[in-house]
């Protein structure tokens, strides 16, 4: 199936990546080339073949329900982008991450 500029914009929105008109056109050319490569798969008869998601057929391990992680809020918040970018000290003191308002 041939992709259109509209498809590129839709995919980019799903991926949460802003694309300009110019970028969308350039992306269309490149993605069309890559999808052409991928298209080779369609010639293969795969009826009845069990999909392989991992190379080792292992089951998910379970662990004991015990505490393994310690609280490292300070270390983790040190690298938060909003700290030096418009946040108030109070929000950070409360251990919050600052994002634009989402509820009216």
């Amino acid at each position, binding site marked *: 199936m041939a992709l259109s500029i509209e498809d590129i914009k839709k995919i980019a929105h799903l991926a949460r990546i802003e694309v300009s008109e110019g970028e969308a056109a350039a992306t269309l050319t490149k993605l069309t080339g890559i999808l052409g490569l*991928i298209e080779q798969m*369609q010639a293969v008869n795969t009826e009845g073949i069990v999909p392989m998601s991992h190379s080792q057929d292992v089951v998910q391990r379970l*662990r004991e329900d015990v505490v393994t992680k310690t609280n490292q809020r300070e270390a983790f918040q040190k690298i938060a982008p909003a700290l030096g970018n418009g946040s108030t000290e109070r929000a950070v003191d409360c251990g919050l991450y600052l*994002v634009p308002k989402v509820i009216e």
Partner: protein
Amino acid sequence: MINSSLKTLSQMLAKKEVSSVELTQAFLNRINTFNPEINAYIALDQDRTLAQAKAADVRITAGNAEPLTGIPIAQKDIFCANGWKTTCGSKMLANFVAPYDAQVITKFDAAGAVNLGKTNMDEFAMGSSNETSYFGGVKNPWDFTRVPGGSSGGSAAAVAARLCAAASGTDTGGSIRQPASLCGLTGLKPTYGVVSRYGMIAFASSLDQAGPMAKSAEDCALMMNVMAGFDERDSTSLNREKEDYARDLNKPLQGLRVGLPKEFFAEGLDANVGKVIEAAIAEYKKLGAEIVEISLPNTGLSIPVYYVLAPAEASSNLSRYDGVRYGHRAAEYTDLMDMYCKSRAEGFGAEVKRRILIGTYVLSAGYYDAYYLKAQQIRRLIAQDFEEAFKHCDVIMGPAAPSTAFKAGEKVDDPVAMYLQDIYTISTNLAGLPGMSVPAGFSTGDDGKALPVGLQIIGNYFDEARMLNVAHQYQQVTDWHTRMPDLPTPQGTK
């Protein structure tokens, strides 16, 4: 000293012929001289590095050293290292100081190895030339106009230029073996699940695997002894008994069955590279190996399958970069959606965006069966090809890459041409098998430059010790792995 094997360095340290601080300083001096040109390292912290070296010297004096104690190692910038800037080659993480250690880093620290710094790489390990790095390309030490390969291009260049004793790398579709081939070193991608992925920034989780990049198979074995092992924090880590990867190095190769897949010697392989590989195979015959012709009929499909599965997994893994808790956030935005879209548009480079978009597309409603499911089915066919082949041989050999190092800029605008660099390596990732690249000689290009060629050795699951044996025996009768490039003295230094 800078050209010595890990074993020799370890013995010199034990006998106090050199201290770890002296050895580390020698490498730091070379880094200061050559790195501004080569750009193999993107994060250095010399005080921290020397503090580790001092601690290693104390440990050696105390008599409880391990084989890698005091040895300076470079770490690919995909591994989180507590307190170190860890960028994965991306603007998205340009200011990310890791708040914890990857298991690989923890293991090197516990072994007493010295972390020399973080090496350059293709952004989020997506690339085969190191040119997608936000921090600029890396020069191939054999010819500064050429790429070192990728994505572990910085680690490869650092080992080749002797800016470290050995390095870590990761390999999702060939990112250890292709740069090892292009830079003339020995690199091993272990069986999927052997080395913990904890703290290793995720690209395609069902394919990503870390491994050593070093000067010889023996060095790789010593590195593997540190890197491998079960880790409960990685859900796909395999709980196996600890093994000594150096145990079989000295076994003779008499009777070894070497499978040559005819698909690895077909159209697309550079003729001069093919000749070097044939000469290496002839050497193996002299060592007593028996050559078996095999077929891996679905080799050509490995690239289409990979470029569905890897981007699909990447689009999911990289959704975590939203500019909220860490990573790049756009300076201006109108609302939450706008913040996500702008932060990601600014933080990711062109190739990473392409792969996220491909992955998003193949996973989107209506296309899942035609792309993702189909690719997973063909993935099984590829794995079954290997299963069949290993009924007739012990190891598989062929080229690691279709050509020698190419010119910087040559393929950067043509993703499909770049993807074909991994035609011989991707199928082993899809199957989860171990593979390595071993220096096998040089091919002289049109411009008269001699460039390294790598022989690929593919083993059956968990057969790393045998592969290292196979490579080591070859390195006992050849000296390709000891060759090092003549680095031009940078201007302004003497």
